[in-house]
């Protein structure tokens, strides 16, 4: 056997076990869910009722729109704030910038549930903010618990550090020399930003935005602990269908709906990623 052929066998032997695990534990169940979602619960015949249920029942439709609202607001706010923060960290060399640069990654490693719990101790009706208000004779009712705004605040806590990290990594790859060169030939700050920094970092912004979007469409812990009963985030609605109502066909349909919501951004993500890097440092 030739050396090249041998190498190929080794290469496939190394990659296939992991690949098969993904196929067995992710791809196969998803395909199985898609099939299940078109079946009637009792007769097992083809039907679209499982999908129709989620788009015609007012409460279920509300859940879908509510989820999209929370997720899109989260993505927009998180990305804008993260971009500004990343720019600040990249181009400011003060001591404060250094402190923030050291501190912003840590929230990423705090278990989600602990962070949600910590936030609850602050914003609940008898939480820290209300108690501080009481000390000044005020009664501050934030109304964040069991409300979309609370979910968004919590999502920002999780996603700003993440998005900042992704964008900062991209901005870090832009060498100072080309910016100085542009400044030397007379480009102003805004010009440098629009013509160089923005186009060079847009790929990282898109990647960060798609991940924030995907991770929030299916978010569970935050709405489970701080979300209201109606409308619900889709993650909770799915958990109820599966665990409370034991309706596997409907939960399969809802999973597929959530997959499709995410597929949009997965396509964007893959396209951004597979494009060869047009510009090399």
């Amino acid at each position, binding site marked *: 056997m030739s050396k090249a052929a041998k*190498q*190929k066998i*080794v290469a496939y032997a*190394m*990659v296939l076990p*992991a*690949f098969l*695990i*993904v196929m067995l*534990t*992710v791809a196969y169940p*998803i395909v*199985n*869910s898609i099939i299940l979602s078109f079946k009637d619960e009792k007769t097992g015949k083809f039907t679209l009722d499982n999908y129709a249920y989620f788009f015609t029942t007012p409460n279920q439709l509300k859940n879908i729109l509510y989820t999209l609202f929370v997720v899109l607001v989260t993505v927009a706010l998180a990305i804008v704030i993260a971009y500004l923060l990343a720019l600040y960290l990249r181009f*400011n060399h*003060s001591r*404060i910038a250094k402190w*923030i640069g050291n*501190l912003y990654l840590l*929230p*990423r*490693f705090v*278990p*989600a*549930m*602990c*962070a*949600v*719990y*910590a936030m*609850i*101790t*602050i914003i609940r009706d008898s939480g*820290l903010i209300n*108690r501080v208000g*009481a000390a000044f004779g005020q009664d501050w009712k934030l109304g964040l618990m069991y409300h979309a705004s609370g979910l968004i605040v919590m999502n920002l*806590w999780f996603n700003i*550090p993440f998005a900042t990290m992704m964008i900062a*990594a*991209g901005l*870090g790859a832009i060498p100072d020399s080309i910016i100085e060169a542009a400044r030397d030939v007379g480009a102003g700050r805004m010009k440098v930003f629009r013509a160089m920094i923005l186009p060079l970092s847009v790929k*990282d912004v898109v*990647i960060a935005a798609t991940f924030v979007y*995907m991770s929030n*469409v*299916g978010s*569970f*812990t935050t709405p489970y*602990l701080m979300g209201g009963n109606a409308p619900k985030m889709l*993650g909770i609605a*799915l*958990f109820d269908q*599966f*665990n409370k109502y034991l309706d596997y066909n409907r939960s399969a349909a809802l*999973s597929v709906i*959530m*997959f499709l919501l995410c597929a949009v951004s*997965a396509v964007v993500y*893959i396209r951004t990623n*597979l494009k060869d890097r047009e510009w090399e440092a």
Partner: protein
Amino acid sequence: MFKYMNPKRFYHAVGRKKFWEFILLAVFIIFFYGPLLNMLLLAFSNSYEYPHVFAQAWGTKWWAYVFQQKSLVSSIAQSFIIAIATTAISMLFCIPAAYSIARFKYPGRKGFMLSFLLTNAFPKLGIYTSIAVLFYKYGLMGTYAGVIIIHMINSMMFMVWLPASAFRSVHRQQEEAARDVGAGPVRTFFKVTFPMALPGIAVATLYTFLGSMEEAQGTMLVGLGKIQTMPVAMYGIVLDSSAVQIGAVFAILLIIPSAVMIFAMRRYIGPEAISGGFKMK
């Protein structure tokens, strides 16, 4: 010193730019670290009646309470068993796959790489419910094996992509030099390639371990209450806790492993290293 207490004085003392930087730092710390700090204080508050801002009595009463609960202590053991098993098994499968993708050229390489995105491209809960349907069929619900599979899915993308980019950054010439002086391929890997790629592998391993330690939704769904890791126990505590301090103590117990691991591996952790796990290069 007192003149700095007046915002106006402070503004003129440090200058406009510095002033806004201090504001930024303050907002950053309060938003990201305020909740965690408040939780830390709560854990050591023996008594925390409304409307007191801080505890009326400090102490470790609630720590003693938590450690007297047998179920809570056993959940700590279960968490560690599952996290260690998950990390070991996913290393066994993913590191070879990463090496194969990074070092060999063969048809379908990009497809394999992309397949690992599947694990992160869809809402987790959708994947979990899809798997759970199959787990019921094969008797994996409520077993360690089932829970470990769920935890592995979570981390496979990191466990392949991060080490792959680490392997790619090891220069071929260095491997060839080792081969030239007579080292076999296995020895070259363990003496040259592996140590040089270690930072990337370390970050991936850290992510897998911590991800497993904090995974809650999938464990709750698949564990059927028979397997109670710390985060699953925490859901119960948060939702029907008699005292806010119990949750605080437990949340801090949950943070400790992350804090220890991050401190131990702080050299390797940076935006460039972590964001590598989200990009295909």
